[in-house]
Structures are given as C-alpha cells and as structure tokens.
C-alpha cells in the first residue's frame, strides 16, 4: 500500500466531520493484517492490510479477479487466510465459522431462499438467533417498511421484480443487526436508472442505521457515489486507499488514475522541481508542462502527468504561447447531453480526451469536426505521477 503523504488539498465532496481514519486514537472495527490467500498456487489476496472504522461506508474497487470478493469472503468466513490476521472489534476471527461471525453478507445473486416467502426469508437470521416469535414478527414488519416492501410479505422470491428481490436480500442481511454489512456487487443486476436510485437509498439507509457497510464493486461510479473511503485493488493488492475525491483528484499511480474515470496521461522528463512547482518537458507540448506539485522529482527522471478530460479547455482561437498548451484537430465529438467529449488529435498523432459541461443550451460557434483547436489546462489541473 502506498499512500503518499501530501498536504491535503481541499477537494471534492467529503463528509468533513466524519474521518475516523485520520484519528490516531480511533480503534478500527475491522482490521486486516498482512492477509494472504492463495488458490491452487495463484495468489488472490497478497498481503493486504486494511482498517475499516465503525460507521464507515467502505468500498473495495477493482477489476474482476483483483481479489476484492475474496477479501470479503475472508471476512465473512467462507475462506480462510493462508497467513495474516483478521480482527473484528478487536477479536481475532481465525477459526470462527461463518455462522458465528456477526457480519452479514448480501450476495451478488441475492441468494434468496426460493422455497420461503419474503417474510420468512427476512426472519431466517432472526430465527437462528433464537429471537422470540412476536419480536421476529415486529422486526420483519419494521424491515419490510424500511425497504418499502410492505404488502409483499407473503410473496415468494420468484414473484418479485429484480429491484424488489434486491431489497429483500438487503432486508434479510440487516435484519439480525450485524456489526457490519458486506455487499457483494449489490447493484450489478439492476438497470442503470434503478442502480443510481438504489445507490442513494443505500447511503441513506447506512446513515439511518449507523451500520458499517463494506461494498465490493467493479463499478467506479458506484464506489465514488456511495463510499466514504475507497480501496483500489489490483492483482491481490491495495494500490490506494482514500476518499473518493482523493483517488480521483490525487491518484498515486497511473493505474489508479486510469481505473477511476477518464484520464489523459502524458509522459515527460522532470526539468525542475522546488517543492511547489514541477516543470516537465514532453514531446506532446512544445511549451512543456508547469504544474503545482510538492514532490521533489529528480531532474531528468521520467514522470507522467495525468489530466482529467474535464480539466482541459478547448479553444478555437489560438491562446498566447506558454506551458500547458497543445495544438490539435478535432477527430471526434461525443455528445452526451450533459457533457460533450472531444477527441483531439495532437500534432504528435496522440489522441487526447477533453470534456466540457454543456452549461448553456446554445453556443455562438460550436466546435466542429476537423476544427483546428488549442488545448490548455491550469497549473493545478494535473497530477504528476512517478509510478
């Protein structure tokens, strides 16, 4: 894990009052210590250390096969680590079978019991706890109201829509009031509109219950929207942990920059670095790059500049010469309604992505195909990456 120490910039939307990970005295709810898991010689989880705090909405984000689901299954008890330790509220979980762990999981397939009605699905965990019948009935009613499924208590799972099933699975998992809820790709089976709605519902629910949520997803948007913190994973390792705005605006590697959102990466050589500014030369930009950056790069070393498309401005008139300026030709335009994406072919032959919010309904002179354009960006628009 390589979290670079940089003075925290004021970036993005954050719950500024909630940051237990920044408090050295705070005790984590879950702690992974150097956890390793191999399957038939293939390392699925490779020495992961991670703290998750009470009340957090934490996301494990990565492409399929990066080990994020294995990490979650290790916590639920369906897999045992080859080495390392997992503790929950200070208690070592080693040797505890899944049914004795106070965490509940919402499965990607929902795994609703097909032979049981909605209410009996929700009551299942409560029954295992030995809760008295009348209390179970009350709790089930409460859960049904919470996920807005009143009136469907007697239905069987296959009589429900995909969205309803998802909510039953959610209700079933939170009904026994676990210390932590694990969500394995919870929204993957829903269509886009429903998925967006459900993301906000999940957040509201998590706030309301004050429960710790751990979500596993390959969808960066889902992680960005829902989570307080995101751990970006690659081939069994955590590459970066941070708030959504951190990983988006201050990625620590080309991998993270590229995985989260769209990005243009320019390779160049560091020519000057004084702790506040880095200047780079690059074949893409005749004037070089001039970036606000506190890293003291070695002069002459190779570095990469990552700039997000929405931070690049497209000009039809030539701006004055200087750094952070490139010339090119519009190769393609993607109109998305709220945004327009321009693919600009630079003189070097590289294609760069620039995006503009369509804040106005009409423009005097729209950018057209094959237009000659100039691209510029501000000194603080990009991140210098060394790996």
């Amino acid at each position, binding site marked *: 894990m390589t979290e670079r120490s940089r003075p925290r910039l004021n970036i993005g939307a954050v719950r500024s009052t909630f940051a237990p990970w920044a408090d050295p005295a705070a005790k984590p709810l879950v702690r992974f210590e150097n956890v390793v898991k191999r399957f038939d010689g293939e390392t699925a989880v490779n020495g992961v250390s991670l703290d998750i705090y009470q009340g957090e909405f934490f996301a494990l984000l990565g492409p399929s096969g990066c080990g994020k689901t294995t990490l979650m299954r290790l916590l639920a008890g369906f897999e045992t680590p080859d080495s390392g330790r997992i503790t929950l509220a200070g208690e070592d979980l080693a040797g505890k079978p899944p049914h004795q762990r106070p965490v509940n999981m919402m*499965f990607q397939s929902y795994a609703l*019991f097909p032979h049981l009605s909605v209410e009996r699905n929700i009551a299942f965990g409560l029954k295992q706890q030995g809760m008295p019948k009348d209390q179970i009935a009350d709790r089930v009613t409460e859960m049904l109201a919470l996920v807005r499924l009143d009136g469907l208590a007697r239905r069987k799972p296959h009589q429900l829509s995909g969205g309803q099933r998802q909510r039953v699975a959610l209700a079933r998992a939170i009904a026994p009031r676990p210390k932590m809820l694990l969500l394995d790709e919870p929204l993957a089976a829903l269509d886009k509109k429903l998925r967006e709605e459900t993301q906000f519902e999940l957040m509201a629910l998590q706030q309301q219950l004050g429960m710790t949520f751990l979500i596993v997803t390959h969808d960066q948007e889902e992680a960005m929207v829902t989570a307080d913190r995101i751990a970006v994973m690659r081939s069994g390792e955590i590459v970066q942990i941070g708030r959504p705005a951190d990983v988006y605006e201050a990625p620590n590697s080309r991998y993270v920059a590229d995985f989260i959102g769209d990005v243009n990466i320019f390779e160049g050589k560091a020519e000057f670095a004084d702790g506040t500014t880095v200047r780079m030369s690059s074949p893409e930009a005749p004037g070089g790059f001039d970036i606000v950056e506190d890293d003291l790069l070695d002069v002459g070393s190779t570095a990469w500049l990552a700039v997000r498309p929405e931070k690049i401005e497209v000009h039809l008139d030539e701006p004055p010469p200087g750094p952070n300026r490139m010339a090119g030709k519009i190769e393609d335009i993607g109109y998305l309604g709220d945004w327009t994406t321009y693919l600009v072919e630079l003189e070097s032959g590289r294609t760069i992505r620039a995006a503009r919010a369509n804040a106005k309904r009409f423009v005097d002179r729209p950018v057209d195909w094959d237009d000659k354009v100039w691209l510029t960006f501000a000194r603080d628009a990009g991140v210098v990456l060394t790996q």
Partner: protein
Amino acid sequence: MKRGLTTFNIASLVIGFGFLYLPIVLLVIYSFNASRLVTVWGGFSTKWYASLFRNEQLLDAIWVTFRIGLISATIATVLGTFAAVALVRAGRFRGRTLFSGMIFAPLVMPEVILGLSLLLLFVSLGLPRGFWTVTVSHATVTMCYAAVVIQARLSAFDRQLEEAAQDLGCPPIKAFFAITLPNIAPAVAAAWMLAFTLSLDDLVIASFTSGPGSTTLPMRIYSQVRLGVSPEINAVSTLLIGLVATGVIAVYLFQMRKRREA
C-alpha cells in the same frame, strides 16, 4: 416445416402406443373374464378379484413386497442422497472418478451377476436369507438410481443459498436440512418413487437373495405362471397397474398444483 398430424405421424403413434399398451389392455380386460381359460372370453365377472382376496399366498407376497419396497426405497434414498452430496460437493478428492464410476456401475451390471454376488456375500457371511437380505439387496441396487436422480438436481442447486444460510447464523448441517433439502425435495421424492418401483418389480435379485417366508409378488406371479396363467394373476396385475397409475397421476397433479402456487 409441416405441422400437425400427418398420416405418417398418426401411423407411428398408433403402432408405438399399440405395442406399449395393447398387452396391458388385454391383461386388464381378461382380468374381468368369467372363464377360467385365459385366452377364451367367457363374459364379464369380478370373481377373480374376490378369489384373489382369499388367496393367502398371494396376499402374503403382496404384503412382503410392499414392506421390502418401503424400507429399501427409504434406505436407498438416504444413502443415495449422501452419495450425491459427496459427488457434487466434495470437489476433486483422490479417487473421485473411481468412486463415481463405482456408484454408477450397478446401473449397467447384469442383474443376474448382482444377484449372484449378493447371494455369495450372504452365504459367506452366514446370514440366513429372508426378508432382510432382499431388503438390503434392493437398497444396494436402487441406491445407484437414487444417487443419479438426486445428483442431477443437486448440481443445479445454487450453493450460495447454503452460504447465505450460514452467513445468517445457521450451522452447516442445519443449513442442509433447512435450505438444501427442501429445494432438492422433488428429486428426493422422485428418487424414492423410482427405488420403490424398481424394488416392486424386481424378480432376479429377489430370487437370488430371498429365503423362506420372503417370497415377493413378482416371484409368486412367476412361479404361478409356470403352472399356467391363472386369471387371478391378471387380477393382481391389474390392481398393480391401477396402483402405479394412481401414484403417477397423484404425483403429477401434486406437482401441477405446486407449480401453480409457486
């Protein structure tokens, strides 16, 4: 493509079903024959049914057969379920291929050989042959069929359901009974029915492994037929057909109702 019934289709249907059902229909009709001669129609009568219920030997055989069927089918279903779970769940353990091969081998093994080997086993163990040796033999043989039926259903069963149950605080064994078993129940029931039916009509293995006082119905029928077909046999066969048909129709209706409910 041409749809509907062509002459060719009708002809093949008639011939096919004729082959299947004509002998059975004849048997049923002749069970109501008043004449003692099986091949000569002497008018309608139910007297063979009446005499059947006075035939102690035949009634005994029926009772023995049913008890053997009930017990052996139950043993076979339980063992078959275990075998299916082992085959589907245990992944790749050493000798898995051998194990699965050995489970299915009796399906293709000639019954005569099975019967003979079981007989040799019982003789060498010094077990007196009778009711229990037949029951155990039937359980052994029909278990393979039960395992095949249950295995098919079990491999289609989503294991995550069991994981979900465990996740919600249910210990593994309990999860199997609370979640897995209800979901594979149709296959378990079908396996039981199959085992029961196989036991009911088995002649070969029962002949090898039975002893005094454990003559099954097929054995009794066979031995009587050798002395000449008696109309009583037609009557008992008709009753059997009626019973099996009722069973099949009942299961079908039950499943239809479940499907409508579901």
